[in-house]
């Protein structure tokens, strides 16, 4: 799953039911009969939703309670044994902890940097189009490709980043340092890359938010002798709340579910010192060939995301207008 390509397609999804309700809700109440009449028009979408969302989800739930042989044969139900395996794994809690660090660090830093970038790009200056284009590029490139570029750059012996550090004299060993071969540095570099590829979407969402702020409010603040800092925190930031909260929500989901960056950057490291839930699911499938246990962990991951989203939606009310 890619970090950067998803938001564009599904970013509008949470909004649409709400906006539809608003337009029709002002008139008369919709009844079951109306729904039934609308069914022929809704059917294709419903079929798609059932086929693409509910069927795989159901299958994943089902698989998580089965004993699947390496060859792919289904050997019957095992109840909740697969879940017991997941929770019984000694590295389970460290992995959960690392997943939290991963999401908080990537989303937090991405949003802070994007707020700055959006502010800069919102000002008129010569060459603004070019700079806006440059910000989009990490979004246009494939995440795996971007990560591979970093990965090879960080390789000892031939990586440009290592070469650079060695030439500056910051690293003594002429072969360079194995950035991607040690859990901590590989994980930190993964965070850097994840921020890099999350910036375009976040920046543009915030830029769109900035464009909706009426100039009068800023002028009014200036008339009242508010300094730039006060204006930003008291006038601009509150009005960005809608854009900001949507950007944060979608980033949380995307970053939580991100596999490719960590897979490429930390895939060669033995043990589980740099794993998050997603890479652990992958290791269950790839190395241990336990599709059943992987399904159980997927269900747990799914539940965690749903809980985060519900709490977030309740607390922040991102879709409520200011």
């Amino acid at each position, binding site marked *: 799953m890619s970090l950067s390509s998803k938001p564009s397609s599904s970013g509008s999804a949470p909004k649409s039911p*709400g906006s539809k309700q608003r337009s029709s809700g002002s008139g008369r109440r919709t009844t079951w009969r109306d729904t039934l009449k609308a069914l022929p028009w809704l059917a294709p979408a419903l079929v798609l939703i059932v086929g693409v969302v509910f069927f795989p989800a159901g299958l994943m739930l089902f698989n998580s309670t089965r004993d699947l042989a390496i060859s*792919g044969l289904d050997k019957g139900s095992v109840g909740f044994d697969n879940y017991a395996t997941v929770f019984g794994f000694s590295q389970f809690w460290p992995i959960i902890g690392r997943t939290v660090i991963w999401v908080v660090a990537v989303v937090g830093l991405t949003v802070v940097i994007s707020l700055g970038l959006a502010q800069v790009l919102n000002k008129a200056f010569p060459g603004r189009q070019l700079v806006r284009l440059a910000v989009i590029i990490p979004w246009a490139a494939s995440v795996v490709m971007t990560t591979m570029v970093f990965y090879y750059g960080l390789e000892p012996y031939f990586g440009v980043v290592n070469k650079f550090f060695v030439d500056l004299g910051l690293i003594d060993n*002429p072969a360079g340092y194995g950035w991607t*071969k040690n859990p901590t540095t590989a994980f930190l570099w993964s965070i850097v890359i994840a921020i890099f590829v999350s910036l375009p979407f976040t920046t543009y969402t915030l830029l769109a938010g900035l464009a909706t702020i009426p100039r009068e409010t800023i002028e009014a603040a200036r008339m009242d002798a508010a300094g730039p800092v006060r204006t930003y925190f008291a006038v601009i930031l509150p009005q960005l709340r809608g854009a900001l909260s949507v950007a944060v929500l979608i980033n949380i989901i995307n970053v939580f579910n991100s596999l490719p960056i960590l897979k490429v950057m930390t895939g060669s490291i033995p043990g589980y010192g740099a794993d998050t839930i997603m890479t652990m699911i992958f290791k269950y499938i790839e190395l241990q060939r336990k599709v059943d246990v992987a399904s159980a962990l997927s269900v747990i991951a799914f539940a965690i995301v749903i809980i985060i989203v*519900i709490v977030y939606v309740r607390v922040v009310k991102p879709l409520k207008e200011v």
Partner: protein
Amino acid sequence: MRRTRTLGAIAATAALTLTVSGCGFGGSDSGDESGKTTLDFLVPTYSDVTKGLWEDVIEGFEAENEDISVNLEVQSWDNLEKVVSTKIQAGEAPDIYNGGPFAGFASDDLLYKAEDVTSPETFQDFDEGFLDNETLEGTAYAVPLIASTRALFVNNELLDEAGVKEAPKDWDELLDASKKVSELGDGVAGYGMPLGSEEAQAEAAIWLWGAGGTFGDEKEITIDTPENLEGAKQIKKMIDEGATQDDPGSSQRTPLLDIFVQGKIGMQVGLPPTVGQIKDSNPDLDYSVVPIPTKDGSPMTLGVGDQLMAFQNDGDKAEAITKFFDYFYTAENYLPWVEAEGFLPVTKSGSEELADNEDLKPFLDLMPDAQFYPSTNSKWSATDGAFKSTFGELESKPADEVLGSIQDQVDEG
């Protein structure tokens, strides 16, 4: 209204989440149209030429057998085993499959016996050692396809420079020579030791078996044994005394071998195709190929064989499969295939014909001392995975702990 929003958000979450976990249904019908028998044939890529080589074989075969058509599907090694288990789950197993471990399929009763899908002449032409490797409880369920043995590639120039006169034969000499080469500095490493996930089990076998250890047999997997521990301790000694490259625990084999080819590593274990790789990318490299050093210098190497197996699908395709195998294993079809891929042949007739091939000679000579993974044990896949994810921890953890942890993972199963 708030509820709708929450639901909407959940639906969006589901859509985002499930794309990662919901993959895996597919396949194609392999029906018999117009009385033709269609054989679905799933193979991995050994090199860039693999697909073309199989296409040539199939073209020749179809010209001779007009009532059979072969449907080739090529996958990367990374995906191969996932693809085949997905196909089996969907009831679409390939008729012929070129893969690694077959024991899991055989014990699930999915495979034809090898004798049922080959003619006696073809069956008897297989080298007994390799055929043993395809046998589960006395019955062969797969036929060997290619084999490789490993040998130590030595960079003569670096060893000369470091004042090492002869290529090492036992562990003490290897440690000594590697340390001397490492001391040359300038980023040069003495011994290239790839313990990363790519093929940790191979480097593990080379060391653990070097003191007389094994990984077990078709009934039992034995990793945590005194002999294996001795090998693991020697690996640690190599690492601790600075005889290897940095970060051996997470170094992958292929990129590390590239660095050997570039001339930055003194010694590393390689395979027959490595010879071709050096010819292509750095023909000036002054190297020699010698047997792998062991604890006391007695000969030992890791042999790996890949195999072809035939799945029992609806309709009796045994006859068509037999025809295909008989066609493929005749010397004039089989040898060009093996030679182009740079591996060792597994038929008696083939070994005789290639005996004077200079590139393959060092590897063919090692064949009698080759030991194999216990790949007929149904727990081998779990063992393989445990090595890949755990063995590199030797770099930082005590040897007995690492072997114990692998044994535990295998026993849990």
